[in-house]
């Protein structure tokens, strides 16, 4: 399937916006937002719960903006099949323990800040969103970095868990730097900056990034082509259940 299912009532796609690009960025934000929403009521402390919810809401706002560029945001979020989603596999990974969530946030928010930084500097259709979102994302990265430092340089147990999480999600990071059609950014060139930032934080946290040939870890994952991991289908089933049970209802 090359074209996403956008339903019958979709608005025409703006000629300056690549639907594929808007979906890729929008789906990243939507899916990660939903994952973070799953923490509601389950975070380690109340204050952290608010922080995670805050990040989720920022991402949902980004997703809404991006999906609206392509069509009806509700139809796109709730009526597409798994194979029509264009998010990277990193964001769909289950929350796991708190360290897994933080590792996912560290990898993704660092990437997103660099990407939106580039997009906001250009004059493309995503520049207005990126200019606003880059400030939000900088906070997300800051949050993830602080927790990486605390967990890595915390107790023996938290150190072990943070290292396990970094290792487990590493294979999902390569996909971030594959070119996205319609995104006028040299994605591969983001990788060096990303690696520098992440390495600095991880080392400061007394942790290590997985070594070995990057290309191996990096090519795993084809979320941008609509191929997703097993748990993503279950996530969508939960997310879309109500909308599919009552099609056409207004909320």
């Amino acid at each position: 399937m090359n074209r996403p299912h956008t339903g019958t009532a979709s608005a025409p796609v703006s000629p300056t916006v690549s639907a594929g690009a808007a979906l890729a960025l929008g789906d990243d934000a939507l899916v990660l937002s939903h994952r973070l929403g799953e923490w509601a009521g389950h975070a380690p402390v109340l204050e952290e719960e608010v922080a995670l919810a805050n990040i989720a809401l920022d991402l949902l706002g980004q997703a809404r903006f991006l999906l609206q560029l392509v069509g009806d945001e509700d139809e796109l979020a709730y009526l597409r099949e798994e194979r029509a989603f264009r998010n990277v596999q990193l964001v769909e990974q289950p929350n796991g323990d708190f360290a897994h969530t933080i590792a996912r946030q560290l990898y993704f928010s660092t990437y997103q800040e660099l990407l939106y930084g580039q997009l906001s500097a250009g004059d493309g259709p995503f520049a207005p969103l990126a200019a606003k979102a880059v400030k939000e994302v900088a906070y997300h990265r800051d949050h993830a970095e602080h927790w990486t430092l605390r967990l890595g340089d915390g107790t023996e147990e938290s150190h072990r868990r943070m290292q396990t999480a970094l290792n487990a999600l590493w294979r999902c990071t390569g996909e971030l730097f594959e070119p996205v059609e319609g995104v006028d950014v040299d994605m591969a060139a983001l990788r060096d900056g990303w690696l520098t930032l992440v390495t600095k934080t991880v080392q400061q946290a007394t942790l290590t990034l997985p070594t070995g040939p990057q290309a191996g870890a990096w090519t795993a994952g084809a979320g941008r082509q609509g191929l997703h991991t097993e748990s993503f289908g279950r996530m969508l089933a939960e997310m879309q259940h109500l909308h599919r049970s009552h099609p056409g209802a207004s909320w």
Partner: protein
Amino acid sequence: MSSTDWPLWEVFVRSRRGLSHTHAGSLHAPDAEMALRNARDLYTRRSEGVSIWVVPSTEITASSPDEKDPFFEPAADKPYRHPTFYDIPEGVRHL
């Protein structure tokens, strides 16, 4: 999680056009950095241009309610303590 790991912090916020920091509430955080970030989420909704102070609750010394009378008695029976009888000469400004 013990209360020593996540002690209580008092939060003071100055809004963008505010003149002074006002006590906004309290929260738990492991250290000052995290307290600042939590305060931002909880009490400022991230409005731009606000200033936040966080103070460990243990650093605050409060006046005791038991000592209220001697502490705050305004000495109302000594009117000479209240400079209300003076005519302000013309030309004096900023009073």
